[in-house]
């Protein structure tokens, strides 16, 4: 059907609110969004369709998947990930991904459609007060509304505010301590039109937000260097702040020059090369014995970009009790929050490290030969280890093998939550930042697959592997469809032990091994109450290979260690998305382990 020719008087540029929002995203650098449509976000999807040569829209199969995929972008690049959902259930399905981004300080912009202003507050169809729900789990939030939706001038003002709101959202999401920003967008403003373009580069107006780079004062740098020089047992305890600040080069330079050993939090993996001899790997509940012993004995803790989380500290009073603490963080509220710091410094950790590196001389190097010897002895005595014998595929072995086969390639690793996550943190050694994606603060099962999807979309030519457990994997298994339909060749290493392994481990340690809803097969199976007898479950449920194939993925399952390396290389060399299921025993425990609220002295090694 031919369109009618335009007359000279016809308006040629009608811009509606949805167009303005999408255009604003693009002008702030947005080129990829994970968006699931619905009644109150349809105008936005029309705008995305219209501008599809400038912004790619990926349709996840669940809004939560879209939220985690957007995080996958944020966590593996310097960009701000974008996700979108409709009002009501679409919006509430984003809540977990938003909370997750908040706890891990991940920049994210979530856009939700909202019912038209005329019916807000009337319990309209698919209405939820998403701003109210999300206040405590966002860094900031906006609702794009007209003061009086019946007044054209007021509606026009709302339209004109959109570019400023989007610009502010980007600014807030990625500066200071990063975090998620929610923009709730009622449909009447999405559909409202104006004749000419608004100003797409307006001034931002944030009198209460001054995240300008904070540098440490020269006096503070002098004090830090003096403390380092005096110390005999210093340790660097570094976290996600280093990754967020892009400061791993500066950190590594400082560690190498000073010779001080480095331990990282789960968020900090990759901040310092995991294979380097100065690396003590991860600390905390499932950290290495040597990292936890070193923290326990240290006389100086250089805590950079960390927040003294309970999974790291265990019993707070006992944590690092011999050591003076230098705490550097960009967020003043983290200073003294859990642990009193002797030298509190509110600064951008990259700027701080640059200043420190400039001021630090050969002369300031601490005398730590004895300390290094002590740490080397601990490393020798208590290495991370697993049973190498037997035919079955231990999870640790599978991850170790994946590491060997992928470490020299351009690889990103995502994980779900549970035992497999901790084993991945222990046995996959990350030498670079932003290669490891883990839901660490919120601990959201189901994070791995959608996050991998986002990473793959941002890095089409890299290898992206989701190391997952059978419990976590099933929490967002629907995203297999997205992998196939959007040509995202994510690889999934599924460590299937038929159980919720981490809970099983706690049942074994603290509840006399009584299984309580931790077996993932049919309930009439003896294993459901822990009465099984085999080392691993023979008849696993469900048939993941069939499921993956049904979604269009390549897939295979292996049980014997002898078959595993070849199967792994088949997966890594495959062109499309691929699932490799390894049937694993469920009796394995993640060790070492410091039970919650205990100390390094209570560490369980066997």
């Amino acid at each position, binding site marked *: 059907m031919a369109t009618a020719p335009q007359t000279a008087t016809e308006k040629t540029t009608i811009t509606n609110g949805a167009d303005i929002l999408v255009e604003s995203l693009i002008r702030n650098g947005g080129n990829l969004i994970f968006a699931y449509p619905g009644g109150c976000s349809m105008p936005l999807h029309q705008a995305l369709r219209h501008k599809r040569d400038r912004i790619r829209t990926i349709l996840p199969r669940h809004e939560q998947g879209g939220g985690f995929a957007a995080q996958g972008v944020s966590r593996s690049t310097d960009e701000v990930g974008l996700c979108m959902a409709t009002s009501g259930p679409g919006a509430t399905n984003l809540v977990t991904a938003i909370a997750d981004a908040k706890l891990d300080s991940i920049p994210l912009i979530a856009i939700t459609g909202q019912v038209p202003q005329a019916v807000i507050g009337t319990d309209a169809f698919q209405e939820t007060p998403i*701003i*109210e729900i999300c*206040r*405590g789990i966002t*860094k*900031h939030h906006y*609702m794009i509304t007209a003061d009086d939706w019946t007044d054209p001038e007021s509606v026009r003002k709302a339209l004109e505010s959109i570019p400023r709101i989007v610009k502010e959202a980007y600014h*807030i999401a990625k500066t200071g301590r990063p975090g998620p920003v929610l923009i709730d967008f009622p449909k009447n403003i999405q559909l409202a039109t104006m004749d000419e373009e608004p100003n797409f580069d307006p001034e931002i107006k*944030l*009198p*209460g*937000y*001054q*995240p*300008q780079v*904070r540098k440490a004062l020269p006096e*503070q740098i002098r004090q830090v260097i003096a403390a380092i020089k005096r110390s005999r047992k210093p340790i660097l305890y570094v976290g996600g702040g280093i990754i967020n600040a892009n400061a791993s080069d500066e950190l590594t330079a400082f560690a190498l020059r000073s010779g001080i050993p480095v331990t990282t939090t789960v968020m900090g993996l990759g901040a310092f090369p995991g294979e380097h001899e100065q690396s003590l790997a991860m600390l905390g509940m499932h950290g290495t014995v040597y990292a936890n012993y070193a923290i326990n004995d240290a006389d100086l803790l250089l805590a950079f970009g960390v927040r003294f989380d309970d999974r790291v500290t265990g019993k707070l009073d006992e944590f690092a009790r011999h050591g003076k603490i230098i705490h550097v963080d960009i*967020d*003043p*509220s983290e*200073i*003294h*929050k859990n642990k009193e710091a002797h030298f*509190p*410094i*509110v*600064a951008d950790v990259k700027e701080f490290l640059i200043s420190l590196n400039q001021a630090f001389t050969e002369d300031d190097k601490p005398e730590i030969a004895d300390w290094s010897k002590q740490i080397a002895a601990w490393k020798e005595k208590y290495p991370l280890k697993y049973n190498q014998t037997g035919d079955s595929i231990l999870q640790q072995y599978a991850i170790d093998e994946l590491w060997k086969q992928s470490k020299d390639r351009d690889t990103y690793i995502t994980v779900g939550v549970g035992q497999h996550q901790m084993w991945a943190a222990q046995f996959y050694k990350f030498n670079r930042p932003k290669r490891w994606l883990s839901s660490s603060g919120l601990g959201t099962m189901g994070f791995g697959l959608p996050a991998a999807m986002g990473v793959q979309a941002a890095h089409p030519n890299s290898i992206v592997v989701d190391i997952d457990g059978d419990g976590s994997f099933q929490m967002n298994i629907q995203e297999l469809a997205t992998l196939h339909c959007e040509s995202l060749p994510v690889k999934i290493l599924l460590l299937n032990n038929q159980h919720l392994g981490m809970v099983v481990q706690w049942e074994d340690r603290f509840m006399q091994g009584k299984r309580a809803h931790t077996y993932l097969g049919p309930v009439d199976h003896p294993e459901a109450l822990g009465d099984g007898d085999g080392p691993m479950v023979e008849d696993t449920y469900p048939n993941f290979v069939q499921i993956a194939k049904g979604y269009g993925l390549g897939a295979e399952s292996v049980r014997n260690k002898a078959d595993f390396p070849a199967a792994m290389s088949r997966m890594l060399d495959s062109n499309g998305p691929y699932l490799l299921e390894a049937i694993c025993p469920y009796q394995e425990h993640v060790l070492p382990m410091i039970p919650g609220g205990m100390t390094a002295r209570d560490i369980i090694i066997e």
Partner: protein
Amino acid sequence: MKHVLSALVVNQPGVLAHISGMLASRAFNIESLAVGETENPEFSRITFVVSGGDRVLDQVRKQLEKMITVVRVIDFSGQEFVERDLMLLKVSTTIGARSEIRELVDIFRGSIVDVSPEHVMIEISGQERKLEAFVDVMRPFNIIELVRTGRIALLRSNEQTIDVSEDTPQEKAAAAARQ
């Protein structure tokens, strides 16, 4: 230990809900909270009375400062400030002590703002101790209803509390570093 804090916030919908939600979700104990527009209609000022130790106070202040809509937080501890609380109360006059009540209202520099055969309504403002003392002397007459605004406070002297431009990141950082 009670502390008085004052937050200058952007005057827009939802800010009060955001702040009270944050305080509740972090389990801070707020004794009173008073809010109103300032001389600049773009900003409101919220005065809090918080109970807890220094560490709690420090966290409340920092968590407030972290909020995008909060421009500045002032902790009045150890500073010269004026604080006031406004109270309205209805006192029964059925036992015929109207003149005695009037006398007490005068002593406390309150005023009677409404009169009926059975009661008087009294307006009184001042520091918390004064208001409490007044409540005590009124009790024998039978207090029918009572309402208070919660405390509001301002620093004495010429110290500017609204000038946003003063609030440099260095100052904020230095304030945080002071513990």
